[in-house]
């Protein structure tokens, strides 16, 4: 009788522990989202449209705007997508189509390693490859670093979503007399497009939010919108990073406002990912 009681007691303690620890795990995450909304929203309201379009004010009382950083982030994301996504999709198809060849296996392994690779190392690399020879920080250097960072996400999900396509389709396509080229690009990629698109969105979300690779590549202009791809440019994450380290109160407020803008952009990219995933599950 006593034995059973201790077992039940243990069970109860276990359940309680799970619930408490789960709450403890979730709590800070909600607190982060909530804080960004609470601190950022008043800044957006107070700053109005000018907060999204204006430039950084001098240290003092005004709020000004984060226009250059927003434009910079969009340019960087577009540019890095143009550089990274095609290469990544092709590399992903290669890993899928030749899974047993040495290069196919090695590609897959490399992509998986790159996925969790410290991003600051990519930034340093891009600085050495592009910034030093060009003699100036530039949008190109930042986009190059971001392209390297988004590639593994796109490639891996391309490979995985191709693998999820039933073999029957492939066999049917071959039996129609299509070449290997046509089978992949006209049939397989089209069937797997939803999964590939998900990977692309994840990659874009990643590129939009990265800070470390931009530290030594883009220069982080705050008062000039856009001068050219070979000139310094701003980015929201980098702006936040720089403003947080400043001692001025208005800069901290701008940082919170920028954080909310970044969060909204991130959620905007992320929501379709979730919806897409759910559609597939049904």
């Amino acid at each position, binding site marked *: 009788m006593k034995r059973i009681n201790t077992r039940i007691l243990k069970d109860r303690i276990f359940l309680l*522990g799970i619930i408490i620890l789960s709450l403890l795990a979730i709590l800070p*995450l909600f607190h982060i989202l909530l804080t*960004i909304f609470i601190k950022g929203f008043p800044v957006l309201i107070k700053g109005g449209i000018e907060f999204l379009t204006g430039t950084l004010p001098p240290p003092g009382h005004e709020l000004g705007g984060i226009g250059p950083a927003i434009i910079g982030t969009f340019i960087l994301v577009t540019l890095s997508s143009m550089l990274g996504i095609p290469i990544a999709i092709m590399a992903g198809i290669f890993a899928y189509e030749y899974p047993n060849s040495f*290069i196919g296996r090695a590609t897959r392994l490399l992509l998986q390693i790159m996925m*969790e690779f410290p991003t600051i190392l990519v930034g340093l*690399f891009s600085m050495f490859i592009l910034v030093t020879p060009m003699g100036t920080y530039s949008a190109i250097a930042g986009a190059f670093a971001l392209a390297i960072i988004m590639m593994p996400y796109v490639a891996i999900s391309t490979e995985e979503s191709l693998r999820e396509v039933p073999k029957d389709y492939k066999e049917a396509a071959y039996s129609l007399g299509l070449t*290997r080229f046509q089978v992949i690009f006209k049939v397989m990629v089209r069937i797997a497009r939803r999964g590939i698109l998900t990977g692309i969105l994840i990659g874009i979300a990643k590129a939009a939010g990265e800070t470390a690779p931009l530290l030594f590549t883009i220069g982080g202009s705050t008062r000039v919108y856009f001068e050219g791809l070979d000139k310094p440019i701003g980015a929201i994450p980098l702006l936040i990073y720089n403003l*947080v380290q400043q001692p001025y109160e208005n800069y901290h407020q701008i940082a919170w406002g920028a954080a909310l803008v970044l969060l909204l952009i991130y959620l905007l990219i992320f929501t379709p990912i979730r919806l897409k995933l759910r559609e597939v599950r049904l």
Partner: protein
Amino acid sequence: MKDYLKIFLLPFSSLVFGIFILMLIVYFLNSYEIFKREGLAIYFTNVWNASEIPEEEYYGVLAAIYGSLYTSIIAIIISLPLSISLAIFIVDYAPKRLKEFFIIASDIMAGLPTILYGIWGAFILVPFLKNYVMEPLYQSLSFIPLFSYPPTTGFSYLSAGVLLGIMVTPFATSIIREAYRMIPQMYKEALYSLGATRYEATKVLLGYIKPAIVAGMILAFGRAIGETVAVSLVIGNVFNIDISLFAPGYTISSLIANQFGNAFVYEYMVSALFAAGLSLFFIGLIINILALYIIRRWKYETY
């Protein structure tokens, strides 16, 4: 017949490889100068003599390596119980509607731009830890070496470790959750039919996915050690090797982030920072390969 597809795709795969190998070469080439000058001592000394006169320059990044390991270990210690509990809760106990919500929330948080963790860490977490954790502990238990450093600013190993722990928990949770979810329903039914309590059943099932948990934790460790901006905002950025949780310090990535901007003024600092990056490069490589190997072996053995 020639395989045109392969010929067409090969350049892209090679490009990915080329970039990675070029990256390795760049790190080796740039570290060469400091290795020639100091040898491996750069990894085992804690000095940072930046000087206008090249002869007086001497760099050792031990403090940063120490800080990286220390904060990442704190992060893992915090994250392990939290992520396992959350994974179990989501899979076994959360009501269906809540389950979906929890999964979405943890996926969102796993991919959240790390600078958002950073701003929260710098403005909210650090003051909180300083006022409610560090100061009470320091006042009452400062004879214990772990709590012996006076928490004047709050920027410390502890702040960085806790922030990293919070950051990697959603990521670790999703790995453990996926593994836990994949356990065949049969096993659970068998356990309960033997009269096991929920505690006993879960204990057995966790044993079954142990490799996935280990791999998840290794990957989380890798993420923690590679994180730059969030850590750099809360660790204090001081060359320091201290056992105390409340002492400020450096990590490899925050060292690079902070010093690289003015490194070009000096003769050898760039090279020293590339050498620090090289150590991070190999830590990243080893961690990822190890985790992939564990997961692959586990999947191979079980399926």
